[in-house]
C-alpha cells in the first residue's frame, strides 16, 4: 500500500509517490497539469452531461407513452429530443472514453508520466467547458428544435430557436477534440516507456491512436460546416439556400463527412476498452492482437468513406448511392474481425464473470445486434423503407448505447480502483448491470419493429396502431433509468465508504495494475521498463496473477 496522504501538500513540492488525489483545494484541481486530474474533471463533466441527456431521454419516452399530448406540446417535444441528441453526442459521448478515460489511462498504459503536452491538455478541457457554456446559454434561451443534425434550410431560415449559440458550442468543442487528438498522437509516438514497442502497445492505446487520427482529420470539416451555417443564418449568404443558388443537400454532405467518422470516434475507443476487459478477465492474450489493432485503423479509414449512406434517399445520384452502399458493407469486415477475435480470446481462457466482464460480454451481445442491423441499412433496397424510421433510431442506439455507453460504464467499473483507490459493491454492480441490460433491450428492441412497420422518427404523435410498441419502449426506459440510478448509488457508496483497493484487484498482468491504487502522482514509483507484452499471461508468475 503506497497510498499514504502526501505530507507535502501545500507549499512544498508534492511527494511524487503520494496519490494523485492527495493534494487538496480547488486550485489544485483547476490549475493542475496532471493528466489524471484533467481526466477526472472530464469524467465529472461528461457524467453530468450524461445525466442531463438522460433526463431528456426519459422525457421523450414519457411523452410517447400515449398518442397525442401526454406531458408536453409539440414544440417543447422538438426541443427536448433535439437537446437529448446534442447533449449526448457533443457533450457526452464524443469526449466520454477518449478525453475522460483515455486521459487517465493512456500515459499509464504507456508507462510514462504524462501526455506529451500537459498544458495543451488542460487547455482542451477549458475549451470544452467554454463550448459547454455556449450550449448552456442556448438551453437557457430555449434550446434548439432542429435535431442534433441541424439540417438546412430548417436550421438556417425557419427555426426560431437559439440555433447560433448551440452551433457555436459544437464549433468550440470541436477544437477541444482536435487538440486532444493531437496530444494523444504525439504521446503514443513519443512517450512510450523503454521496451514498449508498437507490437506491445495495449489495444486500448491502439484504439485511442486510431480515434485521435479521426478527431484530427474530421473535426475541422465540422468546424467549417458549422461556421458556414452560422454565416448562412446571420448573413443569408445562400450557400445552402436554393433560392440563391445554394444547395441544402450540400449541407448534408458536409455534416456527415464529419458526423459519420464521429461515429467511429465513439465506437473505436469503446472497442479498445472491451479488448482490455476481455483479456484481463479471461487471463489470456488477445487472439489476433495484430488484427484487432489494425481493424481499429481500418475502421478509422473506412469511416471517412461512407458518409453518403446517410443520404441514400436524399436525392443523390443512383451511382453515388451504389458506391456508398458498397463501401458501407466493407465496415462489416473489421467490425466482424474484432468480434471473432474476442470470441476466440475467450476460448480456453480462465473466465471470471465480475461486473466489468459482464459489461464486456454485454458489449459483444449488443454491438453484434447493432452491427447486423447495420447490414439492413447498408442494403440500398432495404434501406429505402427503413431510412428515417425508428429502425434507424434503434440501430444507432444499439451501437452508441449498447456499444459505447456499455463499454464506457464497463471501463469505469474496470479502472475504478485505479482512479479512486476504492472498491465498489460487486452485488449492486451486478444488479445495475442486469437492469441496464434488460432495460436497454426492452427500450430499443421494440423500436426495431416500430420502424420496420413504418413509424417515422422524430414524431410527437403517432397512429393508434403503434401504441403498444411505444409503451413497451417507454417502460424499458424506466428499467434502464433505475439501472443507472442503482449504479450511481453504488459508485457514491464506494467513494464514501468503499473498501481500499489493492494494486491489482483483477489479477491482470498489464502495466497499469503494477502500480499503486489510486495512481501515484507520477504514475509509477520508479520509471518502468517494459520487457514483455501487456497480455503475456502465460509468462506470468502466480504472484503476478494473485488479486492483490
Amino acid at each position: 500500500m503506497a497510498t499514504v496522504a502526501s505530507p507535502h501538500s501545500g507549499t512544498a513540492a508534492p511527494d511524487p509517490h503520494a496519490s494523485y488525489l492527495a493534494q487538496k483545494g480547488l486550485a489544485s484541481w483547476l490549475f493542475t497539469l496532471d493528466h489524471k486530474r484533467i481526466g477526472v474533471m472530464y469524467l465529472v463533466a461528461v457524467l453530468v452531461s450524461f445525466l442531463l441527456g438522460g433526463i431528456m431521454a426519459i422525457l421523450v419516452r414519457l411523452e410517447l407513452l400515449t398518442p397525442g399530448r401526454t406531458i408536453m406540446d409539440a414544440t417543447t417535444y422538438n426541443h427536448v429530443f433535439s437537446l437529448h441528441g446534442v447533449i449526448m453526442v457533443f457533450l457526452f459521448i464524443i469526449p466520454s472514453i477518449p478525453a475522460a478515460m483515455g486521459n487517465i489511462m493512456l500515459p499509464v498504459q504507456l508507462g510514462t508520466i504524462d501526455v506529451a503536452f500537459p498544458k495543451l491538455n488542460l487547455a482542451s478541457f477549458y475549451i470544452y467547458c467554454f463550448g459547454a457554456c455556449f450550449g448552456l446559454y442556448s438551453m437557457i434561451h430555449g434550446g434548439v428544435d432542429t435535431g442534433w443534425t441541424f439540417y438546412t434550410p430548417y436550421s438556417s431560415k425557419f427555426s426560431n430557436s437559439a440555433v447560433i449559440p448551440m452551433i457555436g458550442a459544437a464549433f468550440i468543442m470541436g477544437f477541444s477534440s482536435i487538440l486532444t487528438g493531437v496530444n494523444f498522437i504525439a504521446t503514443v509516438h513519443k512517450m512510450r516507456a523503454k521496451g514498449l514497442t508498437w507490437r506491445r502497445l495495449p489495444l486500448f492505446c491502439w484504439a485511442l491512436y486510431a480515434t485521435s487520427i479521426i478527431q484530427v482529420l474530421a473535426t475541422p470539416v465540422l468546424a467549417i460546416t458549422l461556421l458556414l451555417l452560422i454565416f448562412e443564418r446571420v448573413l443569408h449568404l445562400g450557400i445552402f439556400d436554393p433560392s440563391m443558388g445554394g444547395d441544402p443537400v450540400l449541407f448534408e454532405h458536409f455534416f456527415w463527412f464529419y458526423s459519420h467518422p464521429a461515429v467511429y470516434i465513439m465506437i473505436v475507443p469503446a472497442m479498445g476498452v472491451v479488448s482490455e476487459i476481455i483479456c484481463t478477465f479471461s487471463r489470456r492474450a488477445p487472439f489476433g492482437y495484430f488484427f484487432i489493432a489494425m481493424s481499429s485503423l481500418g475502421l478509422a479509414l473506412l469511416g471517412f468513406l461512407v458518409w453518403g449512406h446517410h443520404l441514400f434517399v436524399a436525392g443523390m445520384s443512383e451511382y453515388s448511392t451504389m458506391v456508398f452502399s458498397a463501401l458501407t458493407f466493407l465496415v462489416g469486415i473489421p467490425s466482424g474481425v474484432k468480434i471473432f477475435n474476442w470470441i476466440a480470446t475467450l476460448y480456453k481462457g480462465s473466465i471470471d464473470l465480475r461486473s466489468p466482464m459482464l459489461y464486456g460480454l454485454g458489449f459483444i451481445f449488443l454491438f453484434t445486434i447493432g452491427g447486423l442491423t447495420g447490414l439492413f441499412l447498408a442494403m440500398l433496397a432495404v434501406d429505402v423503407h427503413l431510412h428515417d424510421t425508428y429502425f434507424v433510431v434503434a440501430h444507432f442506439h444499439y451501437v452508441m448505447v449498447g456499444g459505447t455507453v456499455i463499454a464506457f460504464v464497463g471501463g469505469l467499473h474496470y479502472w475504478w480502483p485505479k482512479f479512486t483507490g476504492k472498491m465498489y459493491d460487486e452485488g449492486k454492480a451486478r444488479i445495475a448491470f442486469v437492469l441496464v441490460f434488460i432495460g436497454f433491450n426492452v427500450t430499443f428492441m421494440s423500436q426495431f419493429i416500430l420502424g420496420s412497420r413504418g413509424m417515422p422518427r422524430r414524431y410527437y404523435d403517432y397512429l393508434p396502431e403503434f401504441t403498444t410498441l411505444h409503451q413497451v419502449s417507454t417502460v424499458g426506459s424506466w428499467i434502464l433509468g433505475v439501472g443507472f440510478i442503482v449504479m450511481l448509488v453504488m459508485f457514491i457508496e464506494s467513494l464514501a465508504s468503499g473498501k481500499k483497493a489493492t494494486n491489482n484487484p483483477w489479477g491482470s498482468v498489464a502495466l497499469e495494475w503494477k502500480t499503486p491504487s489510486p495512481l501515484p502522482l507520477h504514475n509509477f514509483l520508479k520509471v518502468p521498463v517494459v520487457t514483455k507484452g501487456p497480455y503475456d499471461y502465460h509468462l506470468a508468475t502466480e504472484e503476478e496473477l494473485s488479486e492483490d
Partner: protein
Amino acid sequence: MLLFQPLLDAKEPASDTAQLPVIMSSSGAGYDALYYFIYWFSVVFFVGIVGAMLYFVWKYRRQKGVKAAPTKDSTKLELTWTIIPFFMIIVMFHVSFDFYIHNAVASENALEVRVRGQRWNWSFQYPNGEGEGSVLYLPVNKPVKLVMSSSDVLHSFFIPAFRLKKDTVPGMYSQLAFTPTREGEAQVFCAEYCGAGEKPGSGGHYSMGAIIKVVSQAEYDKHMQEISGPGDKKPDEWGKELVQKSGCYTCHSVDGSAGTGPTYKGIFGRKENLSDGSSVDVDENYLRESILRPNAKVVKGFENGNMPPFVFTDAKLDAILAYLKTVK
C-alpha cells in the same frame, strides 16, 4: 438469370407480417423477401456469435488450478473470417443494388403525378392539371411516377405499404416509381424532420400525412371527373371541399382562433393590418392574390407563416372565394 430473380418471383403475403406492414406495390413482395433473408442471416450469425460466447464463458469459467491456455495466433483463421464475409457482402450488395435500380426505373407509360411538400401537408397534381391535397387517387396496376418537390424545408415522402421513400428538397425535383397492386388506402408520412407550429393544434412534422387511395381504373376516372368540376354542388360547397382537400385548415381556422395563418371567420370585408404597416380591405382581389402569391401582402403577426403558393383554375378560385364569403 438475374441474381435477384428470386426477389422478382417472390409471392405477396395476404396480410401484414410480424415485422412489416401490408404490401400494396409491385416491389413489395421482393422487398419483404430480401428483408426476411437478411433478418434470418442476422439471426443465424447472432446465435452463432452469442452462442459461442456463452458456451465459452461457461466451459472455460475460472476454476482453481486451471490456467488459461497460451494464445496461439492463426493467420489462416484470421484470413478465413475476413475473406468469407467479404464474399458474403459482395453478394448482398449486388442483389440489393440491382433490385433497387430495377425498382427505381419508371416505365415509359407511367402516370406522372406532381407531389408538392410544404409545412405541413402534401398536395398533388394529376396529369390533367387538376390538383388536390392530403389525398391522392391512383388506379390499381398502373405504373406511376411521382415527381416531387418542396417549397420550404426538407421533407420525405414515405409510403410504408409501398416500401418506398424519397426526400423532397427545395430547389430540386426527386422521383419515385412504383406500381400499386392492391386496392385500398395507403398511409403517407413525412419522414424528414420539418418542425412544428408554435401554436397548439397548428400541426407539425408528425401530422404531415396523406392518404393514397388505390382504386379501380373506373373509380379513378370517375374521381378525375369529380375534381375537375363542381358536379351538382353549389359553388360555395365546392369551394369548401377544395379548401379542405388543399389542407388549408392546417393553418387557417374557421372559429376565430389564430393559427399559423389568419382565421377565415369573417375574413371577407375585414380590414387587415399588413406587415409593412399599411392596411387593406379584404376583397376578391386581395384573397385571389393571397392564394396565388401568399407572400405579396402578409397580415401583421403572420410573417413566419411561410404559406406556399397554390395553383387553382379560375373556376376553382371563384368557388373558394364563394366559400370564404360564407364563413362568418
